[in-house]
């Protein structure tokens, strides 16, 4: 009894202290060290049960990050032994707070295999498993007096912007953030435009290769806490660094006001897309609409017909002076893990596609863009991207399609593959604002299954009419005529106003991807939008006039009925 009341007294005092400390000016608090959160041994039993059912498969029996899945994951599962945790509120190198680990378990680490466990595990289970994970740490001791932690003060959002998209940061603060970005040389790792294309040689504390974050794909930020556009996450990462990775902290180098501005700049680079809460990825566009153009289609990337805002215009309306009517289609890709030499760690996980077609030229154009941090410097493994079509569209019945990877023995696919090497490029060179030209060769292939992919004997005239590699982004523009001579029935014949299956493939030469070791999409559809019908001009007035006539008739009828009722002819 005595100990119980003593315990509660101690809790009361602790509460008072916290209350007082929280009331102190925040600058003082930032200097204040506190002991690391102790391991709550009473929760270990439940924690162990949860760990061995849910976590052991990736993080391993001892927590060394060497579970059965580990070797096929990029990024690898965390090794808990050293007590190194990325997402914290504590100083660089410090142990994390319990709350940080709880948030990680609850929200998962987007861009890695770590899922969100909220809704799957109860609050108690999450708290317990965090304690168990702490007990797996061998190299450090949460109870050690030297292991005190400094909890940082990040200030608060100076613009008061609101989620989920956090619009409304003034442009001058974003510009100021860019200056801070240049001054602190963030581009050395994150690249000139933040696509993570700065440094190909980085390693984590355990010697495994690691990539700088691509700021233009913030849904893959590990510390996004499923609140992908919140600048707070970036401020936290800049302030605390990421333990175990080359990401240092800038707590003393950049003032907290400037860290928020830098975060605003980083955050402004990420296109606002609708993020699926379950998968933490933008929602796929399963239909690629090809816009009809009068006259020839431009091959200039900067022409308005190839321009669209990065933000989804269903989220942020287009600027009033915006000329184009185009739209970036988001196409997610995954490693080919079905057959042959499987690819569990694709380097590219999405493509952005846009299309135009010309009635005059009778030709269709597809612009495929994607982020790839580093391109190949070895001619044995060129980079490549391909568009896949059903080879004999007219033979397909209903929803029928060829098998989505390289077709099958009965239903061939038509592959337009652009192989390319970058000219005068080195993956370790400093960011080049002018970009690089590509040396492209187009291959047209017929696929009848994984083992039966052959070059066409009579190619259909696919061209790559423009291409560029610029600050970590590849742009390839394909062109082909809608119809071809097609003597061998190997080319897809492209009709307008019809849903046509289309799929994409991508090979990262830098990671030696080749043949079936690649990234793939599922079957999507594309449609060539036709001209607006003429009836759009005359049908609405006709219908309106007819309706007006009906109204007149209604008045006449009603009055007549009334009159008849008044005369006693009807009741």
């Amino acid at each position, binding site marked *: 009894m005595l100990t119980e009341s003593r315990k509660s007294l101690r809790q009361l005092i602790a509460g008072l202290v916290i209350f007082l400390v929280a009331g102190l000016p925040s600058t003082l608090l930032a200097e204040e060290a506190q002991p690391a959160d102790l391991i709550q041994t009473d929760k270990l039993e439940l924690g162990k049960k949860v760990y061995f059912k849910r976590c052991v498969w990736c993080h391993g029996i001892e927590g060394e990050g060497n579970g059965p899945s580990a070797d096929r994951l990029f990024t690898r599962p965390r090794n808990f032994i050293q007590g190194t945790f990325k997402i914290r509120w504590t100083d660089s190198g410090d142990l994390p707070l319990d709350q940080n680990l709880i948030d990680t378990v609850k929200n998962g680490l987007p861009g890695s295999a770590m899922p969100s466990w909220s*809704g799957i595990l109860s609050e108690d289970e999450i708290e317990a498993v965090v304690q168990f994970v702490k007990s797996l740490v061998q190299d450090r001791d949460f109870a050690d007096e030297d292991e005190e932690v400094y909890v940082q003060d990040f200030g608060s959002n100076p613009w008061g912007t609101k989620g989920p998209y956090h619009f409304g940061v003034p442009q001058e603060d974003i510009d100021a953030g860019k200056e801070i970005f240049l001054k602190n040389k963030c581009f050395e790792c994150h690249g000139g435009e933040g696509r993570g294309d700065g440094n190909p040689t980085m390693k984590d504390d355990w010697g495994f290769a690691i990539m700088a974050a691509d700021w233009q794909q913030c849904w893959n930020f590990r510390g996004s806490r499923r609140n992908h556009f919140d600048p707070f996450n970036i401020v936290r990462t800049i302030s605390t660094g990421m333990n175990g990775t080359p990401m240092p902290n800038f707590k003393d180098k950049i003032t907290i006001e400037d860290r928020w501005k830098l975060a605003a700049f980083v955050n402004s680079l990420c296109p606002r897309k609708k993020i699926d809460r379950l998968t933490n990825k933008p929602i796929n566009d399963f239909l690629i609409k090809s816009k009809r153009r009068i006259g020839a289609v431009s091959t200039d990337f900067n022409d308005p017909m190839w321009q669209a805002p990065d933000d989804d215009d269903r989220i942020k309306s287009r600027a009033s002076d915006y000329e184009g009517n185009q739209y970036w289609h988001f196409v997610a890709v995954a490693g080919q893990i*079905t057959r042959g030499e499987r690819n569990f760690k694709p380097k590219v996980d999405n493509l952005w596609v846009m299309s135009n077609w010309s009635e005059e030229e009778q030709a269709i154009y597809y612009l495929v863009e994607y982020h790839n941090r580093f391109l190949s410097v070895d001619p044995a493994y060129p980079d490549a991207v391909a568009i896949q079509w059903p080879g004999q569209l007219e033979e397909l019945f209903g*929803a029928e399609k060829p098998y989505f990877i390289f077709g099958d023995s009965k239903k061939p696919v038509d592959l337009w593959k652009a192989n390319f090497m970058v000219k005068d490029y080195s993956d370790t060179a400093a960011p080049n604002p002018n970009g690089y030209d590509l040396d492209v060769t187009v291959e047209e292939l017929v696929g009848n299954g994984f083992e039966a992919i052959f070059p066409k004997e009579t190619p259909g005239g696919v061209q790559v009419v423009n291409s560029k590699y610029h600050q970590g982004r590849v742009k390839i523009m394909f062109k082909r005529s809608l119809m071809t001579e097609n003597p061998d029935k190997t080319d897809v014949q492209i009709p307008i106003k019809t849903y046509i299956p289309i799929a994409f493939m991508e090979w990262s030469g830098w990671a030696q991807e080749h043949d079936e070791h690649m990234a793939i*999409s599922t079957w999507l559809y594309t449609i060539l939008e036709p001209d607006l019908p003429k009836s759009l001009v005359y049908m*609405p007035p006709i219908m309106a006039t007819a309706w007006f006539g009906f109204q007149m008739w*209604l008045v006449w009828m009603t009055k007549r009925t009334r009159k008849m009722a008044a005369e006693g002819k009807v009741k």
Partner: protein
Amino acid sequence: MNNVVKGLILYVVGWAAFHYGLFPLMTPKEPTWIVNRYVYYLLFVAYCLAFNLVLKLKPPISLNGLAVFLLGFYFYQSVLFPPIPWTLLITYMMLWGIGTFLYVSQDPATFAEFRKPIVRTVTGEYKLARYIVFASMPLLVGFGTYQFIYPSFPEPVELRTVHPAPPATTRVHGKNFTLEGLQNPFRIDEQDNYKDSFPFLDADKQEYMKSVTEGGTIFFRECHYCHGDQLNGLGMFSHVFNPTPANFVDPGTIAMLRESFLFWRVAKGGPGLPNESTPWSSAMPAWEEHLKTDEIWKVILFEYWYTGWHPRTFDEESSAAGGGE
């Protein structure tokens, strides 16, 4: 007339307070107790009844009819969970509209009352109303026609059979398996006895957990990319594929299937599906190319152990209860 305005204000203000105030409180972001939504809806209906009765508003039948119709719309649009597709919404609302009309025309007096303002508008006794209605209706029709003709290209919807009928036999690794009556050779004991066992730690002591551990090891080497670390079909690659990977936690998948069905599906994968199940777009590999027969059975054993489901069986008990198909 005063009462009508009062009633309208109370409806609108009340709805706003309920919808923006109480509804989010009763339905937190993370899915929770689903009955909350319906309790909330009943509270709202009770509110609507209460203010009409307490203030003795005696609203005209047209306002009552409107309220009934909109209450139905609100239920199907926002309260009902999970949300229904718009095609179904239209069907429901047509039925609901008929119901509302029956309510309005239940007796000649209310119907006459309902009809009166309409007739007066048509005949011109309500002059302003007639001008407004007669001018705006043709414009609306013209606009509707324009909308109807304007070409739009929505993402096509494809229907597929999720669990097709299995074949009688399947040939895996050179051996014929008759699916009827085929049992998992590693299901050597009642699964529920191992609920609290640890994979890896108990693998040496318990034969059953040894198989579960081996199955889990294979699952987390091969399957989790699509089916997810939580077996809920939300793996790292899951968002790429259409059809999306199966969610084993859902009661509609492995919980209602026999293990022999799973064996066939795992061994033959997407390419082994019949045409009605769109074999061309399933990303499921034919696992017989990568796994041994025993390994397939162990993965299946693991999936049931992890999710806690039991495979469907066709024993006498369930057929007596009429559970078969």
